[in-house]
């Protein structure tokens, strides 16, 4: 032991500690002798002194030790610290304050372990590691020296985390939710008293902002278990304040009364944040409307008056001058000016906005072909109350960008490069094309970046703009022609040299390397590199390495190794150095799920909820799985709010709890809607037969009913009432109905998704009544019940197994067929039997507006007396649609083909297929040459369509790409279509009729006199062509189609409900249809 005195006492303490001396040795130092290196002599001297002074030393050290036997002495220079005991064996390590489960790897992962010598660095690192876990609010290291060695205790104060946060005393759900979010207490994050105090203040502020100035907020916490503190805010809102006295200062251009009126803040108005925000917005709109673009309006004071529970508001406003925007050199419509000059939108006049307006005006000119347009701006103040913004426009000569050509591009095709350019040559929709210097520069820059991202580091892209000879047009305006040529020198393409991953654990190497798509020798691609990096990162994150980092390092291989003697060809001299790529991985800590703590389940069964939960104890903590679980829980439609949070999110702990906080939805759900469709061929309702009219004593001439219907709109309203969460499960019952001119419906449905916990199986039972007239011929009513099991396998395939039972009756008073058929066809008929449907849907990007993929459906329905059916027939309906996109502008060729066949069997009495069960075609989603369901055979007396047992329809559409148009941007596109097909009495008539363009034996259709019933053959293929407009909306394209029937059928009308004499009817040539969504 070395003992030193005087100013080096601090160092002597350090030395004493390093030798593991106790109080005994330090007190002995006073009698020791300074001796730098002869420790043996020093020890002898100490031994002698110790024996002589043993009792004094031991008594003096024992007394204070006995007093402090149970106390922990704070570390100081006079008491041992970790260096004092360095090197001594550690017998035991304990943890107090935070309990670690037996399977928690954190204690075992600490650098300092029991059974090894005490290493101060390792001990300190262990302290840091424990604190970094986030489980401790405070931590200290205690130790005692026992006979078997050092006993260390990591003693800490455990950290609590926020559990549930609720608000009590607020009836408005929206306000309650607002307050919870205003508290900024996120579940799973550390809990602390300062946070609680801040939250109280924030809630108070939020309540005052919402007009509750007399509110009181208190908070209580409770133990949520598992280290969680649940927080409940008790709110007494008190009455909501109203607007009090309003004052106005500044040159506002209005008085207080006018301000109140314009801002809609009256004496009884609630004084909340929304009211005040809307008030300011209205005032700004007022100023904007009156061209006071520089007006400022602000709410400078809000003073609550407790006696009257009102808030006095103090506004300050400066209306500023009236600003007019004028143009010189060209007239521009006021609306166009407002759109192009952003001072209106921003309600401010400054240089930046004025210059932006100048740029917008110039760009607008350039779009019209004035590529050399110049616009300048200045402001003039004729007097204090007016300001004029003057845009001076020099359009220059009009040009047309006739073409853009490329040379030197080998890696990228011309179409690919053209498709990426903003500059566009002239076309049908852009007469002048689209060109400006700035656009061209942007395009060249992005083209260069594209090449570089694919390894062409030395690429040069050089545009040349040629101004061709000016052509003199018919009017006075002259138009020049521009041509752009882009010369590309691609240069050599860089390739990968070595591609490897470093930093990963050996057991992960194989899996991680298998993710790489970038391979040695391949051409460089920045896209592929980025994708590889994301793939590696995603791989680690799925396995609980949420702190994983992947750094991408690229180095060029040194080409200096190539000297003259090794160069064998010119190519080698010019070779681009290979690029070595290294993905440097820092895995970080792997984190697992400890417990899944669920809160908020009251009526929903736990098993139902857990089926959607993709997080389980022991799983790697994958944040993506949390997101997926949240989505799945929302998909159950049982919860209003689903929050998944990680407890202790920033702590570096190997196991963490996952909090699942649910807010169950109301179990009753109301859904209502309104809509309409407009088209030609609208079935006329309440169109009784002539016989019925005569019997009723009504002149049939007063009724106008046509076999082809009439032009009009069919409106519809609907209401559905749903009871969710039946029995705590994701089952529901819905009572729904709709009412419209074409259909009236009431249905009761029971839905049971995920039958027997199988996510692929769904069960539905429904029963209902429908009264419909979607064919001009009749109105029918159906009483129907069905059960259906849906099975989803693979991503695109769905199978439906169904049993349907319905009673169909045609309303005799509406039946527009031969009188002799009325009694037969208006008889109620029971139809029942199994059905099967297979659907395969690979349409993308969405079924409402697909440009690739296909849709196929196969439906089979079998009605047999064995199932109680009064009509025996089998129906097959097959539809196949395909979508192809092609061309650099992404044209889409869509085709849909439908084939339907019905066949009766059984006894004669069961072979009449009820009218509603027959096959029909025609309408906006079918043969557009006909009104809805009007194609095919007709009743030979009245001329109304009667359907058939065979249907074939083929529709082909060429969907043009959307064009950039003024006002509509790129939301409008055109389609060209052709439909062909028909409905046939017999399915066997389809194929012989395929090549028949003209109606056979059409002369017989014209025989209408001297007969009670006509003769006509409808076995031919009808053709129609047309065009349509599609307007893109967030919910699908709005559709307006115009069709022209090339060969509408003739049909005899012996009995005309318009009281005309027998005549020959002919389906109309023109039809239009307006609806939403593509036609197929």
């Amino acid at each position, binding site marked *: 032991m070395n003992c030193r005195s005087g100013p080096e006492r601090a160092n002597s303490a350090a030395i004493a500690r390093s030798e593991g001396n106790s109080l005994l040795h330090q007190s002995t130092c006073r009698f020791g002798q300074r001796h730098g290196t002869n420790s043996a002599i020093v020890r002898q001297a100490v031994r002698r002194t110790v024996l002589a002074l043993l009792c004094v030393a031991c008594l003096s050290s024992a007394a204070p030790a006995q007093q402090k036997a149970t106390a922990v002495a704070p570390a100081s220079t006079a008491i041992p610290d970790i260096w004092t005991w360095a090197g001594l064996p550690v017998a035991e390590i304990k943890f107090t304050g935070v309990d670690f489960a037996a399977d928690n790897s954190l204690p075992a992962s600490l650098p300092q372990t029991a059974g090894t010598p005490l290493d101060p660095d390792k001990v300190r690192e262990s302290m840091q590691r424990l604190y970094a876990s986030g489980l401790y609010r405070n931590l200290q*290291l205690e130790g005692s020296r026992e006979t078997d060695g050092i006993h260390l205790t990591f003693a800490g104060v455990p950290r609590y985390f926020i559990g549930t946060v609720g608000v009590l005393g607020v009836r408005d759900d929206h306000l309650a939710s607002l307050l919870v979010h205003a508290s900024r207490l996120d579940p799973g994050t550390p809990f602390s008293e300062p946070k609680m105090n801040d939250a109280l203040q924030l809630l108070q502020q939020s309540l005052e902002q919402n007009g509750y100035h007399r509110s009181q907020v208190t908070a209580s916490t409770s133990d949520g278990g598992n280290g969680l503190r649940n927080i409940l805010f008790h709110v007494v809102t008190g009455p909501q304040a109203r607007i009090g006295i309003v004052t106005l200062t500044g040159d506002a251009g209005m008085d207080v009364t006018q301000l109140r009126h314009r801002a809609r803040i009256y004496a009884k108005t609630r004084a909340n944040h929304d009211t005040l925000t809307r008030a300011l917005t209205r005032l700004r709109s007022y100023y904007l409307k009156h061209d006071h673009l520089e007006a400022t309006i602000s709410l400078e004071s809000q003073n609550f008056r407790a006696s009257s529970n009102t808030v006095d508001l103090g506004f300050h406003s400066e209306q500023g001058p009236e600003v007019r925007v004028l143009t010189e050199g060209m007239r521009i419509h006021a609306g166009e000016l407002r759109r192009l000059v952003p001072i209106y939108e921003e309600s401010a006049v400054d240089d930046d906005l004025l210059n932006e307006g100048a740029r917008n005006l110039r760009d607008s000119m350039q779009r019209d072909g004035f590529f050399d347009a110049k616009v300048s701006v200045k402001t003039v103040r004729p007097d204090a109350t007016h300001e004029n913004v003057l845009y001076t426009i020099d359009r220059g000569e009009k040009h047309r960008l006739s073409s853009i050509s490329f040379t030197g591009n080998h890696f990228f095709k011309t179409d690919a490069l053209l498709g990426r350019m903003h500059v566009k040559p002239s076309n049908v929709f852009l007469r002048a094309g689209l060109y400006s210097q700035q656009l061209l520069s942007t395009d060249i820059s992005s083209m260069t970046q594209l090449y570089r991202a694919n390894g062409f580091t030395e690429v040069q892209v050089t545009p040349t703009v040629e101004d061709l000879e000016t052509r003199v047009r018919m009017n006075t305006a002259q138009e020049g022609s521009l041509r752009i040529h882009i010369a590309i020198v691609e240069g050599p393409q860089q390739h990968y040299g070595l591609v490897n991953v470093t930093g990963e654990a050996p057991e992960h190497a194989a899996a991680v390397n298998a993710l790489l798509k970038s391979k040695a020798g391949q051409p460089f691609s920045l896209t592929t590199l980025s994708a590889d990096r994301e793939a590696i990162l995603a791989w680690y994150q799925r396995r609980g390495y949420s702190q994983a980092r992947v750094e991408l390092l690229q180095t060029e291989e040194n080409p200096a190794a190539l000297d003259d003697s090794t160069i064998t060809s010119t190519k080698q001299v010019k070779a681009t150095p290979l690029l070595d790529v290294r993905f440097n991985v820092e895995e970080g800590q792997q984190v697992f799920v400890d417990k899944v703590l669920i809160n908020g389940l009251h009526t929903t069964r736990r098993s139902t909820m857990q089926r959607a939960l993709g997080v389980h104890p022991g799983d790697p903590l994958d944040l993506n799985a949390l997101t997926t679980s949240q989505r799945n829980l929302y998909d159950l439609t049982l919860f209003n709010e689903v929050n998944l949070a990680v407890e202790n999110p920033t702590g570096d702990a190997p196991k963490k709890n996952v909090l699942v906080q649910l807010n169950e939805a109301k179990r009753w759900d109301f859904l209502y809607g309104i809509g309409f469709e407009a088209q030609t061929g609208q079935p006329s309702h309440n169109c009784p037969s002539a016989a019925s009219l005569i019997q009723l004593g009504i002149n049939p001439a007063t009724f106008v009913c046509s076999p082809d219907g009439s032009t009009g709109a069919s409106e519809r309203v609907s209401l559905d009432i749903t009871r969710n969460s039946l029995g705590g499960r994701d089952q529901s019952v819905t009572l729904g109905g709709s009412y419209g001119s074409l259909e009236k419906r009431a249905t009761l449905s029971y839905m049971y998704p995920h039958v027997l916990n199988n996510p692929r199986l769904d069960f539905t039972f429904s029963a209902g009544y429908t009264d419909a007239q979607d064919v001009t011929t009749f109105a029918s009513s159906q009483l129907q019940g069905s059960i259906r099991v849906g099975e989803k396998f693979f991503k695109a395939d769905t199978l439906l197994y169904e049993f349907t039972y319905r009673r169909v009756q045609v309303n005799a008073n509406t039946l527009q067929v031969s009188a002799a058929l009325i009694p037969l066809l208006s008889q109620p008929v029971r139809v029942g039997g199994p059905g099967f449907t297979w659907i395969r849907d690979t349409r993308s990007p969405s079924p409402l507006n697909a440009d690739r993929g296909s849709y196929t459906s196969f439906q089979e329905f079998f009605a047999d007396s064995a199932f109680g059916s009064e009509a025996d027939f089998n129906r097959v309906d097959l539809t196949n649609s395909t979508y192809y996109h092609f061309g650099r502008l992404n044209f889409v060729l869509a085709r849909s083909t439908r084939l339907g066949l019905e066949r009766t069997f059984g006894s004669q009495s069961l072979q009449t297929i009820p009218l509603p069960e027959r096959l029909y075609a025609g309408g906006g989603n079918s043969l557009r040459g006909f009104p809805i369901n009007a194609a095919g055979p007709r009743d030979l007396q009245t001329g109304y369509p009667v359907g058939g047992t065979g249907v074939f329809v083929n529709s082909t559409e060429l969907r043009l790409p959307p064009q950039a148009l003024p006002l509509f941007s790129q939301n409008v596109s055109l389609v060209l279509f052709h439909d062909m097909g028909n409905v046939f009495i017999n399915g066997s008539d389809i194929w012989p009729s395929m090549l028949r363009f003209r109606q056979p034996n059409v002369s017989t259709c014209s025989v209408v006199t001297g007969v009670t019933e006509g003769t006509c053959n409808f076995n031919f293929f009808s053709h129609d062509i047309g065009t349509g407009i599609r307007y893109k909306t967030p919910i699908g394209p709005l559709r307006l189609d115009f069709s022209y029937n090339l060969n509408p059928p003739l049909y005899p009308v012996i009995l005309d409900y318009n009281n005309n004499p027998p005549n020959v009817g002919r389906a109309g040539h023109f039809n239009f249809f307006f609806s939403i969504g593509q036609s197929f």
Partner: protein
Amino acid sequence: MLLVMLACAAATLHAQQITVQLDRIAALVNGQPILDSDVQQEMRIAAMLPVAGAGQSTATQNQREEAMNRLIDRALITAQEQWQPPPPVTDAELAADIAELQRRIPDCAPAKCATHDGWMAVLKAHGFTESEFNTRWRTRIEMLRFIEQRFRDGAHISNEEVTTYYRNTLMPQYAATHTTPPPLANVANRIEQLLLEQRISTLLEDWLKQLRAGGNVRILAPGEDLP
């Protein structure tokens, strides 16, 4: 005598079973703990170094406060390093820097640190092991590199500032001692370096103030708990 010895031995043994606090959290800087042992280690390093102002306070409490402040500043700076990591320190660079340090440490005078054993003895005298010291010193070099990387590129001294310093500061100093000042051309580089260091020092101080103001720093007294 024997009984007395036995009694004292028993008492001594009992005394040795006292649980002492070996370490604790002394401060938190943006959630990162500074341990009491960190402070003690910093005080020992300060005692070793010949840096002016470090470890010169006579009172232990002042030494402790100074050490704490240095550690807090270091923690704030380290947090910024992740955005602009300095180049790593090689073993050769570390050895060279320690060799330079050995030339300046008073305890190494006149040539005690010329041998490895001598250097080990000095380290041991201050309570360090070689690996512990090397780790601390490497971290220190990296931090200095980071500071230099951050500030040196942005700090420029103009010719006018050099001239002004020569005229307003250096010349009066020479005049006061009645000596002829050296020509400006001879001392311009040194003046520039001096001004640069002052500039960087000012920038660093301002930056540290900003970091402290924007950061969350809390010093814990012994026995004090965190909220």
